[in-house]
């Protein structure tokens, strides 16, 4: 999976977790909780959904690396 695929997957999963978000207006380099208005519940659901789809188990200590969509995508792409 490359960065683009991972970003697409994240967009798909975010759309399920928070369907009210218009992904076409989101800045993928902006901070996730501001761009997507995701709180900790949504964030943890997203991490778990990524685990279910890719098998990646993301430890809490790596969460800072997921603080923007692009960074999150790079993290996923590097591990798939």
């Amino acid at each position, binding site marked *: 999976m490359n960065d683009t695929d991972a970003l697409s997957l994240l967009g798909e999963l975010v759309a399920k977790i928070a369907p009210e978000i218009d992904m076409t207006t989101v800045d993928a380099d902006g901070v*996730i909780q501001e761009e997507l208005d995701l709180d900790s519940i949504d964030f943890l659901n997203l991490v778990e959904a990524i685990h279910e789809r890719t098998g990646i188990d993301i430890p809490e200590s790596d969460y800072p690396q997921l603080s923007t969509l692009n960074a999150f995508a790079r993290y996923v792409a590097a591990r798939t």
Partner: protein
Amino acid sequence: MTPLDIRRSSSRSGAATTLQLPDGSTLEVRAVTPADTKGLAELYGSLSIEDLHLRFFSVYHPPEEVLRRWTRLEETGGFGLVAELDTGGGRIVGHASYALLPDGDGDFAITVAPGWRGWLGPYLLDALAAVAAERGVPNLEGDILVENRRMLSLVRARGYATIDEGDWTVMRVLIGTSGKAPTWPGPHEGPRVLVEAPGGRSRMKEAARALGMQVVSCSGPAPRHHNRCPAVTGEPCPLASGADVILFGLSSEDEGACELLRAHSRLHKAVRLCVLRSGAEPEEVPLPNDAVLVDPDTSGDDLAALLRDVAAGDPAEDD
């Protein structure tokens, strides 16, 4: 690609971590000091009425002397962390701490500034648990309003058990600081009963406590968080292996219930099982020979008395 730059350094009060975030900001996670009193006041002052209610169960504005005390928890065996945006006099956007309890666990609380709720809360809880584990504190305990979904999602993701539900508006939860599951809190002279039921609910808890038993509840393998249940991943669960008796009240329709029941037979052979007949069907999962089947309509008092007898090793009839 913006690499995450994490620098760890030792300080008198524990490890400090500097996070260079992908958006270019810098966050330092470090031990709280008395110099943070003003920053904490700004953090708590930024909370909405709803936030204050969820955090303190009332619209409470912690006064300076309380904030100052929170910066000195280490003097009484506790610990506190702050997440400070842009090091050197920057804004505190997160605060996590525990006070040492008489039972050896830590009484924890976490506060994250509006706008930073997402990854930071789980990260701080994990960092706090790591420090507690290093210091020999086995569990973190905390009271959570049942309407506080954010906090419940944090402890659910780590794997939690419930110590007390009070009037069902507040749950006292227990999370382990190392490993996947918590351990039994503190020494206790009476029998230990682990209740495994949806939501950890059972009508016998008050009666069991009145009979001197220590009761901890677990909802079983949480949907989407199976990997946090040690038993279903093949490892002994410290709560199950430390119990005198397990009351199994999960239904075969509950996610992971059958796997958990099989795991008890394999991993926790020395612990007696009482299985509510509405639980996972014995036909699907072979039960140990000494398992006791219980009618789900049994009253709380009768069930508590049965559990006491089973924990004491008395033979119990299959009713």
